[in-house]
């Protein structure tokens, strides 16, 4: 897979800063949203949608030729709202109504939103549903890819391991599981709850291909996703994206309790000012 052009990389970096800013502005009007979880996944979303990785159809979101993207960590996908609006899945005006009466953009996105495939909010469902979709595409001889975004905390769910075992055994090489490895659950660092490491070895044992990158380095994210998407080698792939929960907001980045933290409007104004 050829490396992305310098121009593309520079665009993706700028887009990421812009999406981070837009996400913070959503959080300003909708403090119920999980801001720290949404910030760790910004570069992953940006590369998937602006980096030419995902195939999507904003005016026909369920077009059969789309790549399927399941967001298992639904609470941490507020940063996808400005991307979907920008690409035309829905009107940009809606972004101002997140969590307000009558909108379809809730604190946790569901399949009522154009661009979201499944029901989100309860953790550990994405990998299993992805297995079913991948199996169906495979049996029907279709070439679309299945992507799943999952948080590392979801690895505590037993259902996830049932799916990981299944995907490896059934050689579902059309699945790429992106692990937003931000290392923090709701109450603490994962390594202080039940240490998940070594994650790589766990996946390899279950017959997965493993790639580990810096999840905030768009060049690495792009190269990895572009490579994994096209590699049909009889193995499902996991991309372990090492990220920082609350990335871009210093008060969140250093707080083990950042998952449940809400930023004050004045803080947001200051951070947005710095990003600009």
């Amino acid at each position, binding site marked *: 897979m050829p490396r992305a052009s310098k121009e593309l990389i520079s665009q993706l970096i700028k887009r990421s800063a812009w999406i981070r800013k837009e996400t913070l502005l959503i959080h300003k009007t909708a403090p119920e949203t999980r801001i720290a979880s949404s910030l760790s996944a910004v570069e992953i979303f940006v590369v998937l949608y602006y980096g030419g990785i995902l195939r999507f159809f904003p005016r026909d979101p369920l077009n059969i030729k789309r790549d399927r993207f399941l967001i298992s960590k639904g609470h941490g996908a507020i940063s996808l709202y400005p991307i979907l609006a920008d690409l035309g899945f829905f009107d940009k005006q809606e972004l101002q109504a997140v969590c307000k009466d009558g909108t379809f953009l809730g604190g946790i996105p*569901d*399949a*009522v939103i154009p661009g979201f*495939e*499944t*029901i989100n*909010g*309860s953790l550990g*469902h994405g*990998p*299993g*549903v*992805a*297995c*079913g*979709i*991948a*199996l*169906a*595409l495979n*049996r*029907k001889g279709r070439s679309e890819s299945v992507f799943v975004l999952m948080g590392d905390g979801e690895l505590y769910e*037993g*259902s996830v391991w*049932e*799916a990981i*075992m*299944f995907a490896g055994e*059934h050689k579902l090489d059309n699945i790429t599981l992106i692990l937003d490895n931000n290392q923090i659950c709701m109450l603490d660092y994962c390594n202080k709850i039940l240490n998940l490491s070594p994650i790589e070895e766990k996946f390899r044992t279950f017959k997965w291909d493993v790639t580990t990158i810096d999840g905030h380095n768009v060049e690495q994210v792009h190269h990895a996703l572009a490579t994994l998407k096209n590699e049909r080698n009889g193995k499902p792939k996991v991309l372990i994206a090492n990220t920082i929960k609350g990335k871009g907001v210093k008060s969140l980045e250093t707080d083990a309790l950042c998952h449940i933290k809400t930023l004050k409007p004045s803080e947001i104004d200051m951070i947005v000012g710095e990003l600009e």
Partner: protein
Amino acid sequence: MMGEKATIRDVFIEGIYRRMHEDKDIFFLCADFGSPKLDALREQFPDRFINVGIAEQNLINVATGLALEGYSVYAYAIAPFLTMRCYEQIRVNLALHAQLKEININLIGVGAGLSYDVSGPTHHCLEDISIMRSLPNIEVFSPSDWILAREFIDYSLQEKKPKYLRFDGKPVEQIYTDPSIISFKKGFTELHRGDRVCIISTGYMTHKALSIVKKFHSEQIPIGLIDAYMLKPFDEKAFYRLASKYSCLITLEEGFTGKAGLDGLVAKILVDQNSAIRLIRMGFDDKYVFDIGTREYLHKLQKLDEAEITSRIRVLLSES
């Protein structure tokens, strides 16, 4: 032939197996659970049969993914594990999804009630009617005989919704001879007409009710019998039209009473109609069964044996 015995799951699986030859959009999953009739299906369709292992949560989630891509999916396991180990997967991926998208997933649970009598309370299934009826967007099918199950095959393919099929684990006698009296839209069939007292039963208990009602009829005492096989949806108006001619209704089920089981279904209708009809609920008390013995022995402990039910009905008749 009336009275011919067959295992509901075998009849149903054989029917699905036949359909799989012509219908390429059927997928069959199981959680390491078999049936003599499943062997041919497994052998013939290795590309559309998968044993996910003893992993009910993944069974539901894989079924969801397949159904989202247009497959009609059958997911087969032991009833208490199929409904309760993965209840949250059923809620999130079947009940919630089905409100937004068309997904055809048929959960085939074998071992309704005390089918697995001597295996103890983990294998008994006394909660399923109640908990599955609590979920919006899921249909609940509880057949008393294998003719109903055979007739349900077409329905299961045509109605593209999640459904829970609670099948008995043991061979059961044929009850229905004329399939035209079966209506899955209505949900029940009146098997016997009575005058004052009517039993409403589901699944295995309909066989017991039938035997009791026949004895009363031989004594010229007409007791009504309604076999309820679709516990959701259920045509409440049609049911009330039929039930309102009785002064006393008895619900009979192999499930906990006082929750959302068959008794809850009938009680709701009576309350909505502001009805003065007396309702007697027969089923299991609010405790698990650790006693060991045959199904009939366990029924006797719960006062659900034929003799006890019959004498309770005689008392009701003397009161009404």
